[in-house]
């Protein structure tokens, strides 16, 4: 996930998700989604047999075309969920022989993936899974990474960067009071202050995660089912 993770768009535009806007023809929003969601596409390409550079190029070409010549066609496709849409389009892209994007198209789309990071991440993928499974898994993990990264940046923006590293562990459902007692002095907080901080962090985490996921569906009522799907995909 890029180090510059944008906050979920719904925060700025509460009435429309990124994907909803993208389907409506807004290329900028589609570009934002591409910037978030390229890692699973790269993994899909690599598992499909592409060499690292080839996979990176195909990933860039795929998204470049998506934002220019291969725009979503709501009248022809099931565009309810961005993830399913991308997976469907990847299949079509492969069937078409991975056509490259021309110079004009590339210029229109600014996605340039970090090849070293992409390859390093790919090296950590399980080896005994199918392309689609790994795609789903990476999609889910990318969503979680993006959520935490957005929160990290948010906390940094508020001058709380020192406290942030202690907080994600409290997203776990295990552990009791002793963990608060153990962590509080390290974080420079009282136990009660840590309770409050954790409480707010959990709330904020849920908001951000739901909004990131909400950005990939057209109907906000699908967020919970999408979360379930991501949970399944991450396993």
């Amino acid at each position, binding site marked *: 996930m890029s180090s510059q993770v944008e906050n979920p768009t719904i925060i700025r535009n509460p009435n429309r998700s990124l994907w909803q806007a993208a389907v409506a023809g807004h290329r900028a929003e589609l570009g934002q989604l591409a910037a978030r969601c390229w890692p699973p596409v790269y993994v899909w390409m690599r598992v499909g047999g592409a060499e690292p550079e080839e996979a990176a190029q195909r990933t860039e070409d795929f998204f470049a075309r998506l934002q220019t010549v291969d725009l979503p066609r709501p009248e022809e496709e099931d565009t309810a969920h961005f993830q399913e849409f991308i997976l469907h389009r990847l299949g079509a892209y492969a069937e078409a022989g991975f056509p490259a994007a021309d110079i004009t198209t590339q210029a229109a789309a600014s996605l340039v993936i970090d090849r070293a990071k992409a390859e390093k991440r790919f090296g950590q993928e399980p080896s*005994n899974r199918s392309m689609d499974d790994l795609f789903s898994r990476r999609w889910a993990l990318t969503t979680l990474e993006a959520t*935490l990264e957005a929160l990290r940046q948010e906390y940094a923006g508020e001058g709380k960067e020192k406290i942030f590293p*202690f907080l994600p*562990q409290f997203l776990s459902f295990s552990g*009791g*009071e002793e*963990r608060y007692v153990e962590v509080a002095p390290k974080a420079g907080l009282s136990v009660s202050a840590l309770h409050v901080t954790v409480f707010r962090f959990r709330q904020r985490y849920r908001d951000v*995660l739901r909004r990131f996921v909400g950005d990939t569906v057209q109907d906000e009522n699908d967020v919970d089912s999408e979360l379930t799907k991501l*949970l399944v995909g991450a396993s």
Partner: protein
Amino acid sequence: MPTNPDPDPADDAAPESGALPSILGGMSPDELFARGMQSVRMTGGGSLQSWEPPSVKEAENLFPNYEISEMIGRGGMGVVYKGRQTALDRVVAIKLLPLEVSIDRDFGERFVREARTMAKMNHPNIVSVFDFGNTTEGHLYFVMEFVEGTTLHHLIKSVGLKPVQSLELIVGVCEALQYAHSEGVIHRDIKPANILVDMKGRVKVTDFGLARMDTAKSPEQWGQTMTGMVLGTPDYMAPEQKKGIRVDHRADIYSMGVMLYEMLCGEIPAGIFDPPSQRVAVDERIDQVVIRAMQQEPDRRFTSTGEMQTAVENIRNTPFPQKPASTAATAIGSVGAQSTVVPPPGTMQSPAQTAYAPAPRHHAPIGTFIAAGCAVIAVGIVAWKEFRKPDPVINPATPAPIVAAATPEPKVDPVKVEPEAPKVEPSIAAATPAPPMATPAPLLAAATPVPMEKSHEPVAPVPAPPTERPVAVAQIPVVPVQRNNQILPPQYGAPRVTGITPPVAIAPPPVFDPPPENTGTPLLANDWSALVASGDNLMRRRQTDDAIDAYYQAIEIAQSNPKGVSAEQFGRVCMSLSSLQLQNGSQPEAKRTLIEGRRFLMTNKGSAATIQQIEGLLRKLQKE
């Protein structure tokens, strides 16, 4: 989970295959996604959820004014402890919700509403609430009366109830609800799992979590949430409640009618059903009580629970009209088209509108049970339903480890064993055989010894009702609730159905031998193999809900002690359970079950073939 964060965690994960990279560290994706879900959706998953409730020791830190002695029930949506309020030296039950649920505003409001509603009421047949609030960590909790006993649901499903016992118990419920209604409170979720029966045989109504003041004017106040969901338990919900329109106290009366039928017949009325007198040997006047309580139109029901109580009392206190024993026997033995009563429209037809001639109940009379010298194992049961096993995400830990056995040497949870049989009041615990049917009987009790068909069947362990937790029912239009066994019998007068199209299932239907006539034995609730076998047996008998319950318990045991469990068998149980969950229309729970099965197999070195089989089912489920 590390407590010392990596100062620069990005992209520095361990390189082993499958490791979570970067900022995710060693955290579980399951937990991270669960944190994002609306907590109300987490009620269906039960024990399959990853929430770990505070231990007894941790709970003591949360409740400094109480001595916590034990955890008496837990699930995905909460935990119940038994404790002692030190200042007052009072034994209490403490209900605690997970923090992630507690911070959910909607759920928190419902929880507080339940506590406040219950706290307002002071009646011997209603569980008392002493205190509620938030712990220092933010958990919602409330402290309430500890009821030593069991649930009505457990009694029905384990030892069964005699008609005379059913009538006595329903009178207690009527009294409780009459009081609640007079206070302007509608329960809205009356069902056997919400009725506790203490060691003296007294009923205690609990779980007013869905209750509303009768002055409610808006749909929200009636119980319909802003998102178009209606809360309640479908099998017991009045038609108007299912439609999400305004309900009043008569919705509770409808639920009591359903519950009374279940108490008498052992099954919930569904579709076109036989009146109680055609199922068991009871006064035909009871039919009228059930029929009137279950009228589709609220105006045609009893006007109050007091009126219903009077009707029941009249039956209890007047002679049982003579009915030839042969008639009763015929009625009992001829379940099916010939004996099925087709009532006038709107009378004896359930909301499901499905033909149903239910099979005879299978239970051992409580009198026989007690006479055999067996102890009914009673534990503190607390208001609890939605806690269980849990739900939407959640569903399940057992509400409490209840074990009831119908054998002379019952196997019981040693922790919960009571030294003596419960001190049930005479009419409830009557072990003396009542006069035979042929003898003119002055009271309804005389009719109870009539043997019921298949009464020799073993009692399956039924610790808690999997389908009785409050659920969020997608509303409007109302979708008839289809219980698995409701589609089997032919409609009265219709040609006999020879082929049944089963609900879509992701797992191929298991191939079983014909149901054995008499299988299974009373089981230890903590016995994995026995519970699995019980689940299999119940599945063969198409007792879907009970099978789900048995599997849930088995899974819970396996989760707590995986070493004693075959990973392959665990996987198979998960696949069977998910299939049943799908039959019940719960895709999310089926998914969670499969995910848990896969996790268990991967953690415990299950075979790749089984893992792939589960993954295949998951993919199929996703596509559907």
